[in-house]
C-alpha cells in the first residue's frame, strides 16, 4: 500500500455510449496492484458497464483500457480468454449456473480450463468453499441459497483459478447486516491473503469506505473525485459530500431533468 507500483489496470480517456446515451465521457483511472479500489457512483452511472469494459465484454467507443500492460480491446479472442482466466468477476446476482450444484459451479472453471484429475478438483473446490465458509453447502442447488450465500459461492468460483484480480459488482447491495459483515471481511481478507487486486463497484458508502484503499467517484460519465477513504469522507467537494453523506439534494439533483413544474402543469401533455 505504501509503495505505489505500476498500476494493474489503466483506463485512459474512455468514451462509451449505448445508443444515443453517453455513459462515459473521458474517464481516466488507475487500479493499483494489491489494493482494493472502489468505484462509486449512483445507480445507472455505468459502474457495471465499466467492469464489462475492463473484462473485454464491451468495446469502448474510444480510449484505452490496459490490464497488466496489455490493451484489452486489441487482444484476439484467444488472448482475451487467456487474460480473463486471470480476472475473476463477481456479478451482482452471483450469476451461478442454476442447473448444477454449488460444488459443480465452483468446479466449473477448473474443469473447463485445467484438465486436472477429478480428485484434485475436488480438493481445490472444497478448499475454495471452505474459504468462504460454505463447504457444508456443496450439494445444494443455487436456487436453495440465500442471496449472501450465492455471492459467497460466486466468490469461491471467481477465486477458483487463482486470478490476479477480482472485480466485485455491488457485493453489498441487498444484504442483511450479518451477511454484509461476512462479505466485507471476506473481501478484505481474501485480498490480503491471496495478494489480489480488487475492484469494488458499489454505492454503499459505509461498507466500501471501510475496506477500500482508494476510491473513485464517478457521475455523469466522468470521474468527479478520487482519494483515500478518509479524505473522501471529509471532502469539501459538493458532489463528494452529497454522495458520501447521502444528502437528498445537491449537485446531483433529486429531480430527473424536466421542464419547469409550472410550465408542465399549465401546458397540455
Amino acid at each position, binding site marked *: 500500500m505504501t509503495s505505489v507500483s505500476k498500476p494493474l489496470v489503466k483506463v485512459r480517456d474512455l468514451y462509451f455510449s449505448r445508443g444515443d446515451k453517453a455513459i462515459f465521457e473521458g474517464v481516466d483511472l488507475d487500479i493499483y496492484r494489491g489494493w482494493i479500489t472502489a468505484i462509486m457512483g449512483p445507480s445507472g452511472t455505468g459502474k457495471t458497464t465499466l467492469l*464489462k469494459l475492463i*473484462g473485454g*465484454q464491451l468495446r469502448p467507443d474510444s480510449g484505452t483500457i490496459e490490464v497488466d500492460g496489455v490493451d484489452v480491446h486489441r487482444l484476439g*479472442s484467444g488472448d482475451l*480468454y*487467456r487474460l*480473463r*482466466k486471470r*480476472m*475473476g*468477476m463477481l*456479478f*451482482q*446476482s452471483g*450469476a*451461478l*449456473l*442454476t442447473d448444477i450444484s454449488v460444488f459443480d459451479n465452483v468446479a*466449473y*472453471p477448473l474443469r*473447463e*480450463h485445467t484438465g486436472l484429475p477429478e480428485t484434485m478438483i475436488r480438493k481445490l473446490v472444497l478448499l475454495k468453499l471452505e474459504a468462504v465458509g460454505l463447504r457444508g453447502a456443496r450439494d445444494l442447488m443455487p436456487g436453495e441459497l440465500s442471496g449472501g450465500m450465492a455471492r459467497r459461492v*460466486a466468490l469461491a*468460483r471467481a477465486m477458483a483459478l487463482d486470478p490476479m484480480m477480482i472485480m466485485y459488482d455491488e457485493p453489498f447491495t441487498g444484504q442483511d447486516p450479518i451477511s454484509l459483515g461476512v462479505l466485507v471481511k471476506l473481501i478484505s481478507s481474501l485480498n490480503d491473503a491471496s495478494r489480489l487486486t480488487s475492484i469494488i463497484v458499489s454505492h454503499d458508502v459505509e461498507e466500501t469506505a471501510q475496506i477500500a484503499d482508494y476510491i473513485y467517484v464517478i457521475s455523469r460519465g466522468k470521474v468527479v473525485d478520487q482519494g483515500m477513504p478518509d479524505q473522501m469522507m471529509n471532502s469539501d467537494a459538493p458532489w463528494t459530500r452529497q454522495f458520501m453523506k447521502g444528502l437528498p439534494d445537491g449537485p446531483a439533483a433529486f429531480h430527473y431533468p424536466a421542464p419547469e413544474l409550472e410550465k408542465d402543469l399549465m401546458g397540455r401533455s
Partner: protein
Amino acid sequence: MLDVLARLGRIGIGILGHIGRGHLLLLSILGGIPLLARRPRLLIAQIYAVGVLSMLIIAVSGTFVGMVLGLQGYYILSQFGAEQTLGVMVAASLVRELGPVVAALLFAGRAGSALTAEIGLMGATEQLSGLEMMAVNPIKRILAPRFLAGVISMPLLAAVFSALGVMGGYFVGVGLLGVDDGAFWSQMQTKIDLHEDVYNGVIKSLVFGFVCTWIALFQGYYATPTSEGVSRATTRTVVHSSLAVLGLDFILTALMFGD
C-alpha cells in the same frame, strides 16, 4: 411523407440488422460444433432436454393424427369404393407433410420455447456474462450443443410421429373399420416411395429442426434481459418458428414433389 419513408427505412434497417446478427450467431454456433466431438456429454444432456422430453407429446399427437386420418380417409375413400388405398392416403399424408410439419410445430412449442426461455433467463441472470468472464464462450458451450441436439432430434421425432400415425391409421382403418389388412399395407408399399417420400420427409424435418432451433436460440440469446423481454422472446420463437415451418414447407414441397 418523408416521415413514412424514414420509418420504413428504419424498419428495413432493423430487419436487416436482425438477419445479420442471426447469421453471425449461426456461424459462431456452427464453429462450436467440432468441440462437441470431444465433449459428447454436453450433447447427450441436450438431446435429453430437447428430444426425450418432446417425445411424449409427439407420440400422442402422432397416434391421434393417424387415427383421425384413418377415420376421415375411410369415409371419403369408401364413397369411391377405394378404401383399400386408405393406407396410401394415411402414409403419404404423414410421411410427406404431417409428420415433418406437425412434429416441427409441436417441437417449436415444446422445445423451442423452452430453449428461448432458458437462454433468455441465463442472459437476464448474467449467467452468460458470467461464463464469458470465466473465459468460457457461451455460444460454444451453451448454444452449440442445444443447436446440434435440435437438429438431431427433429428428424427422429418426425419419424416417430409418422410411424405411430401409420399405426394409428392402421388401428382405425383395419382394426375398427374393417379395411383389408393386406390391401392396407401392400397398396401403401406400392405407392410410397423410399426416395420420393421417406427421404424427402426426413430432409424436410432436418431443415425444420435446423430453423426452429436456430430461431429459438437467437431469440433467447438476444432477448431483452428482463422477465418481460424473455416472455416476449418466447412468444416470438413460437410464432416465428411456426411461420417459418409453414413457409419453408411450401417451398420444399414445391421443390421436391413438383415435377
